[in-house]
């Protein structure tokens, strides 16, 4: 493998995989992002362990989505370092290279390929070669078909498999995006508000799904639904105004006065 001086592979053809020998899969160090003078992220540090399920909460506008943008290469930080495993400097890769390296993402606002069917949406997301020639002569293998069926089963869109995704309802699109994420089998999943617009039971199912993914994959979840967070959370990180306000177990967080003030509110009753 050809690597540059930081150890990142230069040729994107090589399948890159993160070096997690130190147990960490994601390093975010001293990252700051500002937009026209507004600091969306402010010297943020975050480390995600390999196989960990991490919940990220924080007030609206705290910078959670921006953080995901930075990790996935959508936004370039002003300062700081982001690396995948020890060796892959994410700031040197573009969005598609990052995706190929094994970071998958579900967007806050569901975005799917509207003209393609649900099935095709998943097909495109499948793990594998994303080059031109393979796309041209690609035939789905049996294993891949099974995988797609399995994903469709999981997200409950079997009946809609041949629907153009543009015709799905909001919640169905949420599910489809999760499905696309599953199909890609990334090492690290970044999930932005997965249960927005889902019923309680669906929320529960999503929680189960995410918990089951942890271990094999590392998962970072952003959510405002506290019931959901509580049901899956081991470690919770609270962002506030672009930096980490608190980190700890759910209980610790709930007791944290600052967090209550800026985020949770004084009531205990969950809404």
């Amino acid at each position, binding site marked *: 493998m050809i690597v540059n001086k930081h150890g990142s592979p230069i040729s994107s053809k090589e399948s890159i995989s993160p070096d997690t020998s130190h147990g960490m899969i994601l390093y975010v160090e001293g990252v700051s992002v500002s937009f026209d003078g507004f600091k969306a992220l402010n010297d943020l540090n975050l480390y995600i362990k390999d196989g960990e399920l991490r919940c990220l909460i924080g007030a609206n506008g705290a910078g959670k989505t921006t953080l995901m943008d930075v990790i996935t290469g959508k936004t370039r930080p002003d300062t700081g370092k982001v690396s995948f495993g020890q060796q892959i400097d994410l700031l040197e890769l573009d969005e598609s290279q990052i995706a190929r390296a094994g970071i998958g993402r579900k967007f806050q606002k569901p975005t799917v390929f509207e003209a393609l069917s649900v099935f095709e949406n998943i097909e495109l997301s499948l793990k594998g070669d994303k080059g031109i020639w393979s796309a041209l002569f690609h035939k789905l293998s049996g294993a891949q078909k099974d995988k797609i069926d399995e994903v469709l089963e999981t997200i409950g869109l079997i009946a809609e498999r041949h629907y153009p995704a543009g015709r799905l*309802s909001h*919640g169905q699109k949420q599910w489809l995006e999760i499905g696309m994420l599953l199909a890609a089998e990334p090492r690290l999943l970044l999930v932005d508000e997965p249960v927005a617009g889902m019923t309680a039971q669906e929320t529960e199912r999503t929680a189960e799904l995410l918990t089951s993914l942890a271990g094999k994959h590392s998962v970072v979840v952003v959510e*405002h639904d506290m019931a959901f967070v509580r049901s899956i959370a081991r470690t919770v990180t609270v962002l506030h105004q672009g930096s980490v306000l608190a980190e700890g177990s759910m209980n610790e967080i709930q007791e944290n006065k600052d967090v209550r003030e800026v985020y949770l*509110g004084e009531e205990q009753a969950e809404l």
Partner: protein
Amino acid sequence: MIELKSVDQKYGGTQILWDLSLDIKQGSRTCIMGRNGVGKTTLLKTIMGLLPISSGSLVINGHDMSKGSVEKRPEIGVGYVPQGRHIFPQLTVEENLKISLNCSRQPSKSIPKHIFKLFPVLQEMLHRRGGDLSGGQQQQLAIARALVLNPDILILDEPNEGIQPNIVQLIRDVLLKLNKEQGMTIILVEQKLPFARAVGEYFHLMEKGQVIASGEMQELTDQLVGKYLAV
């Protein structure tokens, strides 16, 4: 107040709402619930006139709105918070709020002050582009924008999606207050039971484009929930 009579609704060739009838009383707080894709948003869009009714009738505030255009709704006092926020991305927050100031219902021609009391973050962000806001901030803006009209009827499609817990509490309080103090009719689509229970007086459960159960909120039993809201 709002009366739908055997309304059918289609997208192209696919029928979504089937012979749906609904009656919402003035000053009530109604919650519409149902699984993903059963047609809740479609129903609200139908009420808003965003989808022309293919058959059936719709009366709002005594006006026959079966054929009336979308622009008419704000004039007769309907405010709308759509699913997915629909902020004007290239307009500043202030401009987003100013859009409907020209509406004949809005006498003051300036953004009511209490809006900023409800959502202080908007005051801070007044001159930023709407599209730059975070998801939750946009949601707050969407609600504020509907309130600028000072509507009689407020229609909200999953207003809490992506909003931080303390603001969710705030929204609940605001809705209750508006309903109590101004007698504003509230129509809400909500997936989260606790919020629905806290805000709604009445509920309508939807399934496959039809209302299959309605009643007062207390009557929303776990059995019903299990049957129609679980997957």
